[in-house]
């Protein structure tokens, strides 16, 4: 798998005029990488991910997965949204099976596949529950299992833990890392939480706001086996400061530009 985003531009025309959401954005994700994009809210992160998912079309620029141009949404790029997008009328088991059902997988095969991924996210006991009976963190685990069940080439996540409390969030981060290590799936995740980005990723793209573009790319050399102790590592703090510095700096620039313009 190789995701390549090059010279991506996205404009929206609104009642107030043209909004340049993304400008000349470049990034890539290699097979098996965990990459995070951080940026202040409004910097175009969701727009970027929606374009990669094929839910919207770029104004100019190209997005390719394995040299194939992205022309629309597809199960090769699994997506997890911030708000829990489970089907409320389906049981947890049926939710996880749903993608496979859409793709015409036989009932028996999809039941086995779904059970495997439900087990992986630790929710086998809740297979017959309805989404409304689950907590936020559990719902998000079901959404992840549902995306993984189709065995996508890459998993796209848009601030998946943004609505969770801090303890649940850290549990989910550890869980996601373990899942990534076990499945070897490539992950492109959006977040505005710098600690989260440093903890999870091999590489971080820092985005500036208005127009949204990549300001810096940072390799996070903290190894792949990360635990709670990683957060105490002085290098962790150093990376965190570096990213925050880049974000604040870009915010200052934006203010300056606003004052000049």
């Amino acid at each position, binding site marked *: 798998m190789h995701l390549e985003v090059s010279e991506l531009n996205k404009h929206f025309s609104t009642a107030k005029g043209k909004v340049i959401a993304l400008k000349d954005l470049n990034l890539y994700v290699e097979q098996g990488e965990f990459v995070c994009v951080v940026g202040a809210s409004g910097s175009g992160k969701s727009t970027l991910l929606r374009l990669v998912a094929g*839910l919207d079309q770029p104004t100019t620029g190209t997005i390719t997965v394995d040299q194939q141009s992205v022309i629309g949404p597809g*199960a090769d790029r699994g*997506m997890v*949204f911030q708000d829990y997008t489970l089907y409320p009328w389906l049981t947890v088991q049926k939710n996880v099976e749903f993608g496979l059902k859409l793709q015409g997988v036989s009932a028996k095969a999809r039941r086995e596949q779904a059970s495997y991924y439900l087990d992986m996210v630790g929710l086998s006991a809740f297979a017959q529950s309805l989404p409304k009976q689950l907590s936020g963190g559990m719902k998000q685990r079901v959404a992840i299992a549902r995306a993984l069940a189709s065995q996508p080439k890459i998993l796209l996540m848009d601030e998946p833990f943004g609505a969770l409390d801090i303890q649940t969030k850290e549990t989910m981060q550890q869980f996601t890392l373990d899942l990534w290590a076990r499945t070897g799936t490539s992950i492109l995740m959006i977040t505005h939480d710098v600690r989260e980005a440093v903890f999870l990723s091999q590489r971080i793209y820092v985005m500036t706001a208005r127009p949204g573009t990549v300001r810096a790319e940072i390799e996070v050399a903290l190894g792949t086996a990360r635990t709670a102790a990683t957060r105490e590592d002085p290098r962790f703090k150093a990376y965190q400061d570096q990213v925050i510095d880049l974000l604040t700096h870009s915010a200052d620039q934006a203010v300056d530009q606003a004052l000049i313009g």
Partner: protein
Amino acid sequence: MIELEGFSPPLLQRETINHKVWKPRTFWRMGEPIPGHLSLGLRILSIVVPFCLWWALSASGVVNPKFLPSPVEVAQAFGRLWAEGYLLEDVRASVTRVGLGFLLAAVLSVPLGIGMGAFATVRSLLEPIMGIVRYMPAPAFIPLLIIYLGLDEAPKIALIFIGVIFFNTLMIMDAVKFVPKHLLEATYTLGGSRRQTLMQVITPFVVPNILDAFRINMASAWNLVVVAELIAATEGLGKRIAIAQKFFRTDEIFAYLILLGVIGFLFDLLLRWVLRATCKWAVD
């Protein structure tokens, strides 16, 4: 209390502000459920009190019994109509008309409403005309329906159909607008086609709303069947009321009014039961 240096005191002395504490209440708690026994008691009162008032009023002799029959007289009228075989025949006739007219409207309004809700194109095409036609009172169509369809069952069923279909369709359309956009997008990213999204995501999502729309519009169907029967029919609940009026049988009118209420209520219970049985996810 922590004293803050340089913190100027508030303009109002605390003592002058009345810090009221409200006692918790069971009876007047807003937006909260009440205990089961209290609920049951109030529900029984809701029927028993009006019934007793009616009984007392008719027994007091203040109102001419010709105008206000007693509960006993109404029960007797009920028994008489039953024994003479009118009652079942009337119920059968009215229920059939309501059932057919409503069913036709329902079968059409579900795909129409979902189509209009899901596709802006279909909405632009149909919403303006529906918006106008639905404000034409259905009974105003009766003369036309009689000219076109005669005096048999057809105009009555058509009247109910006209009276129900537009509201049903527009209510279903509105429900589709509330399907979360992200739920549809999640479906696309799982490889869902538009057709699959329509049939397997949008449709199941709005089933509870469809049943609710049915419940609400069932009341119009009953209104219209009575209107239709008052004008031209040989049997039916509305027709019997019109006949009773000719012979000044207020007891029979009362009996049939109560019957209409009970039948409507039973239909409502049935639809609520269907909702509970099929959409556990949408009911608490």
